[in-house]
């Protein structure tokens, strides 16, 4: 039953004694809590995405033919599941470090060789599937294509984490501070940066 609940959850309260009514009312809210907390440890493995053939080196983006496949029913539903699941977002944070995303975009997403991810500018779109596409396909100014190099689930988790860097996720799903040197406010404390509508990929910076 938990896996089916998709209601937005803001503040689940515990059931109180002799207050069945309150319990009934808080049930849907509380159920959102179980979506947030589920640890989907045994997801079915996904088939590797078609990878560019060059061994050993990340394919320089854009690799437009990398399909952004969605194995769940549709990308929105799948995205919500990832973005409402604290464990998935925290795994995304793990991959962010593992796959050297933090090397280019800095530990807190403030940017370095790559553009910042914690601000309101999105060069290639801020919606979750767009971010997934940017990760898997790569982008022309240095962002390599990760298709075939990370699993699809990892890409979705990464994208959800990336969106949490600018406060796009609910604060009870986004991560807390890292056990590391501080790199800005923890994701859950970040104000949502409203994506700027006019942001478009620049031709030459």
């Amino acid at each position, binding site marked *: 039953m938990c896996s089916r609940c998709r209601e937005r959850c803001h503040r689940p309260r515990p059931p109180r004694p002799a207050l069945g009514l309150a319990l009934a009312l808080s049930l849907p809210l509380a159920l959102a809590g179980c979506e947030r907390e589920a640890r989907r440890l*045994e*997801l079915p*493995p*996904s088939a590797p995405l078609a990878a560019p*053939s060059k*061994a*050993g080196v990340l394919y320089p983006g854009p690799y437009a033919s990398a399909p952004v496949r969605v194995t769940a029913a549709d990308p929105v539903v799948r995205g919500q599941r990832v973005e409402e699941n604290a464990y998935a977002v925290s795994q995304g944070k793990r991959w962010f470090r593992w796959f050297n995303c933090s090397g280019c975009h800095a530990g807190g997403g403030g940017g370095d060789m790559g553009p910042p991810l914690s601000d309101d500018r999105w060069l290639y779109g801020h919606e979750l599937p767009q971010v997934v596409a940017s990760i898997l396909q790569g982008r022309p100014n240095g962002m390599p294509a990760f298709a*075939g190099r*990370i699993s699809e689930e990892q890409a979705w988790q990464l994208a959800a984490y990336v969106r949490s860097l600018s406060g796009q996720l609910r604060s009870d799903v986004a991560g807390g501070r890292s056990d590391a040197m501080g790199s800005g406010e923890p994701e859950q404390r970040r104000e949502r940066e409203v994506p700027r509508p006019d942001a478009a990929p620049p031709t030459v910076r």
Partner: protein
Amino acid sequence: MATRIRPLQRRPHARGPEPRTFAAAALAALVLGLLPLAAVAAPPFGAGSQDALRTGGPQAALILDLWRLLLAVCGVVFAAVMAAFGVALWRARRGTRDTPPELQGPLRGEPRSARLVAAATGASAVGLCGLIVASVLTDRALARLPLSNALHVELTAHQWWWQARYDDADPSRTFETANELHLPAGRPVLLTLHADDVIHSFWVPNLSGKKDLIPGRTATLALRADVPGRYRGQCAEFCGLQHAGMALEVVVEPDAAYAAWAERQRRPAEPPTDPQAQRGQRLFLAGTCAMCHAIQGTDAAARRAPDLTHLAGRARLAAGTVPNGRAQLAAWIADPAAFKPGTNMPGHRYAPEDLDALVAYLETLR
């Protein structure tokens, strides 16, 4: 390599509904608890290979001696107390609800009881002091393990595997391995312990007591393994989902065998010659594998997962939890979560011929 490998169809763990509620789990417990469930057919490690009572080196032996002493002393004390208790019960008069309470004795004072209690207390204090001395002496003996000519190994614990770097004064002779330590029999080893993420604890009971690996701190542990054999160690501090699946194999072997092993570990992987293995190597390097694993001699140099340069030489996969063999390797690559739910390695639905090639390549990494 004609045989085609299929990933194990049977999952070692029943996959319960997720997430479970308490009620559902309780129900499942009643229904399933008594049903026989399939376990992967792992060749047994052997009873006693992770056992503080079967020692393979002086550190564990010292502790075992202390254990025997404490067991004897405590056994005697326990027996004495129980005897006193039994005698008291045996000899005491019986009473009922209507037995008038005895108030006179307590009011007068009971010198005999007082003497006995005082004597027993005094004896306990003396015995305890003896135990403290024995404990401190053992502790000091443990700390005095001679470390000249010690082998230095840097051990880093990750969720949920062990990374080992064998140090050498000559940096080019250092090498890395994972989840399987080989130690020369009779030569002391100084382990430098780090933790990458959360607190873990290094424990090979046959060889020594445990030591925590704490992020932000460095600890050392000295031990010596005298008796050749295969020992099993396991993380002893709860470290998350796969705490139970974070084992470590320690192979203690004679000096010559160790030296040969170490020399082999120092060599980079040979480029594969067999076309199938070559294809597997391409898959490895162009796919997800190289994003986390390293194979010396190739472009794969990631450090998030065990170094696979000599994977085929190890007895087990997945931090000592899965026996190493073609079928298991294939099954593990296809769906690691079936073996270790929560593992950070993703599953792969490779085409069968790709999986074959990949496994063929990994099998060449001796």
